[in-house]
C-alpha cells in the first residue's frame, strides 16, 4: 500500500483534492479502456430506450452493474496508486458505495451545474474520478473549488456558466489520471466544446458507518473479493 506523503496529506486537508497522474497505466489501462469501450457500446441502445421512456438522462450514461461485467472495474477500486491515500484519509475504515462508469456526451452545455454531493453532516465522502480517455481543456474536464470542502467555506452559489465559479481549478488530464476529491466540496464537469465524449469512472467511497451498505449490495461479486481487506471494502462481512 502506497501511503500519501506529508505534502499530499497537507494538500488533501487544506485543498480537498489530490491528483494522481498515470495512476493507471500500461496493460491495466489498456484493459480498462477495452472493457469500458466494449460495455459502453453494448449498453448504449438500452440507454437510449430508457431516455425515450423518460427513465434516464439524455446527456450521459453509465454502464449498469459494471462490477459484474468485468473484473477490471473491481480491481480499480483498491488500486495501489490511490488506495493507500483513501485508507489513510478514512482511518483505514473505508467502504465503496458505488461505481459510475460514465460516458458524457459532447453538448453545448455541461450536463451538470456546480454542486457539492453531501453536507458536512455526512460521514467523510470521497470520490475518485479516473479518466479513461485523454481529457483536454474544454472537453468536459473535472473542476473543483479548492478549500470549498471545509466547514464554514463559502457561501457558494451556482453560476450560470461553469467558468464563472470563483476560485475554481480545472483538471484536464491524460487517460489513467485519477483525481481524488472530498465530496463536501463544490465540483462540476466543465463544458465540452469538442466532439469527443468524456469517458471516466467515478468511484464513490465513504468512511464506514454501521449499516451504511448491507452485505447483499455486492454479494454478486463475492467471488472476486477473497481477501479480508476487500471483503471489508465491499461490505461483504467476514
Amino acid at each position: 500500500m502506497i501511503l500519501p506523503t506529508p505534502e499530499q496529506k497537507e494538500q488533501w486537508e487544506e485543498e480537498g483534492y489530490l491528483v494522481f497522474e498515470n495512476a493507471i497505466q500500461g496493460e491495466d489501462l489498456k484493459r480498462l479502456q477495452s472493457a469500458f469501450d466494449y460495455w459502453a457500446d453494448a449498453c448504449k441502445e438500452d440507454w437510449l430506450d430508457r431516455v425515450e421512456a423518460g427513465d434516464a438522462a439524455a446527456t450521459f450514461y453509465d454502464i449498469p452493474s459494471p462490477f459484474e461485467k468485468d473484473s477490471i472495474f473491481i480491481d480499480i477500486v483498491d488500486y495501489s496508486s490511490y488506495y493507500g491515500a483513501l485508507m489513510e484519509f478514512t482511518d483505514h475504515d473505508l467502504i465503496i458505495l458505488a461505481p459510475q462508469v460514465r460516458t458524457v456526451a459532447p453538448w453545448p452545455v455541461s450536463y451538470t451545474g456546480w454542486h457539492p454531493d453531501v453536507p458536512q453532516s455526512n460521514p467523510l465522502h470521497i470520490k475518485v474520478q479516473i479518466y479513461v480517455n485523454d481529457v483536454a481543456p474544454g472537453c468536459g474536464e473535472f473542476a473543483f473549488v479548492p478549500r470549498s470542502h471545509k466547514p464554514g467555506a463559502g457561501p457558494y452559489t451556482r453560476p450560470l456558466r461553469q467558468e464563472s465559479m470563483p476560485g475554481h481549478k480545472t483538471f484536464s488530464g491524460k487517460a489513467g489520471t485519477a483525481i481524488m476529491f472530498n465530496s463536501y466540496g463544490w465540483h462540476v464537469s466543465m463544458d465540452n466544446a469538442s466532439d469527443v465524449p468524456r469517458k471516466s469512472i467515478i468511484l464513490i467511497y465513504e468512511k464506514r458507518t454501521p449499516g451504511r451498505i448491507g452485505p447483499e449490495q455486492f454479494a454478486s461479486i463475492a467471488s472476486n473479493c477473497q481477501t479480508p481487506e476487500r471483503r471489508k471494502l465491499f461490505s461483504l462481512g467476514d
Partner: protein
Amino acid sequence: MPRIDAHLHVFTKASPEFPRETSDVWPPEREEPVEKLLGEMEKNQIDQAVLVQMAGTSLDEHRYLLQCLKDYPNRFLGIGLIPQGHPNPAEHMAQLTDSTGIIGFRLSTFGGPRDIFAKMDVSEFETYPIWQYAAEHDCVLWLYPQAIEAHLLPYLIRAFPQVRVVLNHLAMTPGKGKFSWDELGRPQIQVTSYNLAMHTTYRLARFENVTVHLSGQYAFSKEGFPYQDLAGWHRNLFNDFGPKRLMWATDFPWILEDPGYDKLTTIIEKLLPNLSEPELADIMGGNAKRFLRFPDL
C-alpha cells in the same frame, strides 16, 4: 403589476363554427369556454392569461382560440399549434399570427437525431424552418419536449438566440408511454423520483432567452395540493433561472375540480415560501407581462 396565468386551455363544443378534435376527455359536447375562465380569473384577481391551443393543428381548428383573442384583445395572448410535417410551416405560422393575438407556437418534437452522440446540424432538423420563422418574425416558442428530444434544444437555442423560449410545466420532458389521464380527467405524467431534467432542460438556464412555467404540478406530484414533494424542483428552478425567468400558470381547465383554480393561485407562495414580494409579483405576472409583451390594461 398584473397577475397573469401564463398557460391554460379553453374550448367550446365541437361545431361547424368551431371544429375541434375530440376525445374521451374532451368529447364533442364538453366545453370549457373562455367565459368560465374569466369567471375564475375575476374571483381570484387574475388579470390576463395565455390561451394555448389544446389540440387540433389546422387553421380551422384554431377558430375558437382566434375568436377569444378577438373578443378580449387586452386580456389574452394566444399560442397556436403547427401540423407535424406541414410542407410550409411558415405559411401556417404567418396566417395564424397576422394581427390575431397569437404570439407563438407550441412544439413537443424538433425532428433531430435521437442519439446525442450523433453529428448535430440544426439546419437538418425538421423544425428548423419553424425556428427560422420564429426568429425572423419574433414568435415565441412554447416547448414541452419529449424526453428523447430534450438534448436537441441547446443546439436550436444557440442557433436562434433571438427566439423567446418558454419551457412548459416545470421544464419537464415526458417519457414515451408515461402519459395517462386520471379519474378526474387530468393529465398524469409518470416521472422518476430523481429529476432527470436537471441534466437537460434545467441546464438551459444559461441561455437568457429561456423561461420556465411553474405549472402542471398535479401531473407530476405523488401528493395532493400543494404538492410539497415538488418543492425541491421549484427551488432548483428558482436557483437556476432566477426570479425573472419563471412564470406561474394553472393549466386550466384540468385543475378545476382538484385542486381548484383558487388554490393554484397560492401555490407559488407555498412551494417557494422565501420569495420576496417583488419576486413573487414577478413570477405571478410581471415576468409574463415583460417576456410575452402583454398589453397594458
